[in-house]
């Protein structure tokens, strides 16, 4: 063997040894190990949760600065899964094995045992487990990715993630390259009854309008009239009729100078609108000067519209000009309280009834926003915070439900955190809820799933899995307005872009009506604020 050859062998052996030292260990349970008293510190927290049987692998990072290798052993009903990680602790499980494990473990627990190698010795953390629910989650999750700020916008998009794997489809992205003349914002994507067949979202600033996707085609409409505050804002598709209820809001933002909550998003005025998609006509549902109606949401039968309402007349000095309203409200931003209201609707005559109080929280100095009715029509899921309506910036914001059968209102403590939870939606089977929460770092919202069982109890929430769990840290954008659907959006990104860039928005015809009236306040429960049980 000559000198040169020996040198090559030494170099190659060194590289192989180096790679082996840096890489993952073999995924097998160590023959010998010592037991540790504590559970492993894993990120994200996937311990003691209930997961859908069709969810993608819950990849995670084991945090142990003393260890340089990890092995994870998952045991389900007669099925095992082994995975390993190097020093970075990132466990990325095999998709097929994971699916098999969940398939056999439906309705039972999966036990997770984590081993860590510290030096030459292996240690075993106290195992944790998760439960596999019987009911799947709707496979597709739509969300907007946007920096958690503030007034400006540039690169943002609406995406659809397949929760059963790692696929992400771009529904639409605005200007990647900055162009002042084309810069626009996109927001408030919404679907009808958990199906992507009917979809809409707004485009603001340049190329503005509301994009409505139906029958595989996109068109753009403009909802403007001198009586409409702005355009349509927060939407809700009617479950059976081709109608969309919108709020129309004059919204402003104020930036705290010394507060844990960075931003206060306030409405100066807001009303409710009804848009007829087929006829391209719009009319008011409620139009009041001192009540702020917002966040409409249809019940699944389409006969009741829920919404939030704040009476701001006590906060305003009515002798001052209306132009000072915004400033007056800013000074008393923490005294704006929204109640949960409802109004009946007759789909045949398209007539609305009198507004009814559903949950009155203003007297308790609490505020409700974003009501979402469960697909079975039994529960209204909403966010309760200390004030205001844009609860995703309120640390006090928690998820609550009102049981429409019993009239009881209660917090979903298991799913809530110390930080903000909001912009929630239901899975079509009503067993899963998805919501945005800033709990991971207080700033960047992530989409969380929580199981909602048959008894109306929510279980511990968990962040949607990522192929690389560290993306939850590395991604400098927030998950915004997560919406679950059973199917995927079929219209291509190019078709939607074409609609936005190349078509003019069609003006909706305004139909005047007598929509101006004030609600009556029924008696409510003194503790929970709930209205009497319905008969």
């Amino acid at each position, binding site marked *: 063997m000559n000198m040169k050859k020996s040198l090559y062998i030494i170099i190659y052996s060194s590289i192989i040894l180096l790679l082996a030292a840096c890489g993952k260990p073999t995924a097998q349970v160590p023959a010998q190990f010592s037991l540790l008293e504590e559970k492993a510190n894993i990120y994200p927290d996937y311990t003691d949760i209930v997961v859908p049987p069709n969810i993608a692998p819950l990849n995670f990072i084991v945090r142990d600065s003393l260890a340089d290798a990890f092995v994870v052993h998952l045991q389900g009903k007669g099925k095992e899964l082994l995975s390993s990680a190097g020093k970075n602790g990132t466990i990325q499980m095999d998709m097929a094995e994971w699916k098999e494990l969940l398939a056999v473990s439906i309705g039972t627990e999966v036990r997770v045992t984590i081993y860590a190698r510290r030096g030459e010795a292996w240690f075993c953390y106290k195992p944790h487990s998760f439960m596999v629910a019987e009911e799947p989650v709707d496979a597709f999750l739509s969300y*907007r990715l*946007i*920096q*958690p*700020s*503030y*007034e*400006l*916008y*540039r*690169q*943002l998009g609406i995406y659809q993630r397949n929760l059963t794997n790692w696929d992400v489809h771009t529904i639409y992205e605005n200007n*990647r*390259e*900055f162009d*002042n003349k084309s810069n626009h*914002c996109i*927001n408030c994507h919404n679907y009808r009854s958990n199906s992507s067949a009917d979809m809409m979202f707004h485009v*603001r*600033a340049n190329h503005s309008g509301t994009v409505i996707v139906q029958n595989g085609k996109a068109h753009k409409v403009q909802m403007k009239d001198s009586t409409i505050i702005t355009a349509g804002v927060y939407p809700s598709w009617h479950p059976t009729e081709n109608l969309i209820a919108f709020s129309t809001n004059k*919204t*402003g*933002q*104020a*930036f*705290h*100078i*010394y*507060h*844990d909550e*960075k*931003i*206060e*998003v306030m409405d100066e005025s807001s009303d409710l609108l009804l848009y007829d998609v087929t006829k391209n006509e719009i009319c008011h549902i409620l139009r009041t000067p001192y009540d702020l109606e917002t966040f409409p949401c249809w019940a699944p039968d389409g006969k009741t519209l829920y919404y939030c309402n704040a009476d701001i007349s006590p906060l305003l000095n009515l002798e001052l000009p209306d132009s000072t309203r915004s400033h007056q409200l*800013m000074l008393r931003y923490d005294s704006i309280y929204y109640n949960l209201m409802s109004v009946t609707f007759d789909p045949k005559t398209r007539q609305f009834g009198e507004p009814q109080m559903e949950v009155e929280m203003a007297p308790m100095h609490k505020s409700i926003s974003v009501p979402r009715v469960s697909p079975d029509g039994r529960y209204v899921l909403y966010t309760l915070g200390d004030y205001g309506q*844009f609860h*995703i910036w309120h640390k006090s914001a928690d998820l609550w439900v009102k049981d429409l059968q019993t009239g009881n209102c209660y917090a979903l403590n298991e799913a809530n955190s110390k930080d903000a939870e909001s912009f929630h939606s239901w899975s079509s089977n009503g067993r899963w809820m998805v919501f945005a929460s800033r709990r*991971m*770092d*207080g*700033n*960047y919202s992530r989409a969380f799933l929580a199981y909602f069982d048959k008894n109306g109890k929510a279980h511990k929430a968990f962040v949607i899995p990522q192929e*690389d769990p560290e*993306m939850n*840290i*590395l991604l*400098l954008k*927030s998950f*915004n307005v997560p919406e679950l659907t059973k199917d995927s959006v079929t219209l291509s990104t190019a078709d939607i872009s074409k609609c936005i860039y190349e078509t003019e928005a069609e003006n909706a015809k305004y139909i005047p009506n007598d929509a101006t009236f004030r609600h009556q306040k029924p008696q409510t429960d003194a503790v929970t604020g709930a209205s009497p049980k319905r008969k």
Partner: protein
Amino acid sequence: MSKRSSQPSRKAAQQKETEPPVRHKQWRLPVLLLFFVAVLVWATYYYGSVFQLSREYSFWVSDTRQLDFILSCSFGILRYVGRALLMTYKYPWLGGLLMAFILTLGTWLVGYCWRLKAKWRALQYLPALAYMGTVTYYGLDIFFEAETGYIMGIPFLVLLVLVIWGIMIRSFSRKKTPSFIKVPSDETHRDNLIQLVVCVLGFAAIVGFNELKRPYVRVITQLALMEQEQDWEGIQALARANAYQSNRPMACMYAIALVHTDQIAERMYDIRLDYDSLYLHGMDKTLNNGSSMYIAEGCYHGGFPESCMHSCMEQMVMQGPTLRLMKLYIKSALMRGEWELCRKFLRILSDVPFEGSFCKKYGAMVGNDSLVDADPEIAKIRLTEPLHDSFEGMYQQPVFMGYNLALVEGRSANALYNSLCVCLYTKLMPSFLERLEPLMGRTPPDIIADGILLTATKNPGLENKFTGLNLRIPRIQGFMQQIQPYMSDRPGHAYELFGKYKGYYPYYYFFGNLKATKKGYTGEVTSNSGVN
């Protein structure tokens, strides 16, 4: 003696006659090597601060997922590679060395690929000189609201093309390549001289243009880097050395340094505060006053970490994350006790080459309030944090000035001085008067003292409520008399009088910042869409 010595000289004379005549040997210099040294000096010492600050206005990690915001744009790979190369400017000598290598190798390859004959070899220097000239022409625009990946990406791309071209030529031709280090054998003295002249003239033009047309570029970038290094004395020295230059970024950095050395009420007017326009363009390509170069810093050092985070985030939305913004964000988040947010940004920053020391220093503070408070910079800033919450929109912009203008209670004497100085700066004397009470019976700092005397002309007896003002009265009386001839055209005489009254507040009151005074110090209108 004379006989013996005359023999060899005769021999030598005979030899001279038989040998062919030797031409006088003419010098030739290794111009390419000298060019390398000159570029190195330019890219390291002369313009190094500009590139180094460009790095701070950039962001690069090897993980392409985090750079999707540029990779998905046109020339994404170029931007990515260019940003990676720019990271070497953490150490200007390293970045300068790389820049010099790219430009010099490119220069040599131009000569080789174009098969330039010795007499035309001076042409090979033109592309590199043109690049340096372009960079100098654009000045701050190379990084301000611009794609920083192009700074080193473009020369690198050109080099890459030339290398491929050169390899192709070399594959088909075995012709001897000109020497990279030595003087090429085919060059005459004249060829060599022409190259030297082209290079010297080129560098002279570049440096001359910068000194005459963009004198503020190096000053601003050096000041901004000193701010990051917390070199308060350096900022003051540099700003005073360039006292006649006047721009907002410089004024803000200078004020920050004075705040940290407790001299804001003593030395603020040592530099001219008239704010000449800069050659600076925003994303919309219109002229910009550079406010986004200093508002985040101003808010942070002014005691408004949340407003700093707001400003950082707005800039990140438009330009993507940058090292500068992330560092400010981390420091602000530390002040606000947002530990998880700090960890997030530190984790991202830890993947950026050469940022280990920052991560180590501030990473140690995460979750440890006492360590945060013990940091000298933060400890100083804490003194001027607001006592109560309110909204930014309630104040004139930028908020670090607007808040101080409205300050009615502060947590320290520093906050009071800041507030008084902002009142004087904005020439709002009634507001200044309202805040003087805590200083009564004491000797105020120089600028405040002069402000009091100036106000006393309309409020007789005011000066008697303070001590130590009597000695200053003759000067202000003299000043008021001396300036009378100039009062009819104050903007016209401001510049010429600055040298005489440098550092004297009454001069600023009558002659300084007149344009801003006329317009009012108002913030820019921003869109209110896109809440999330």
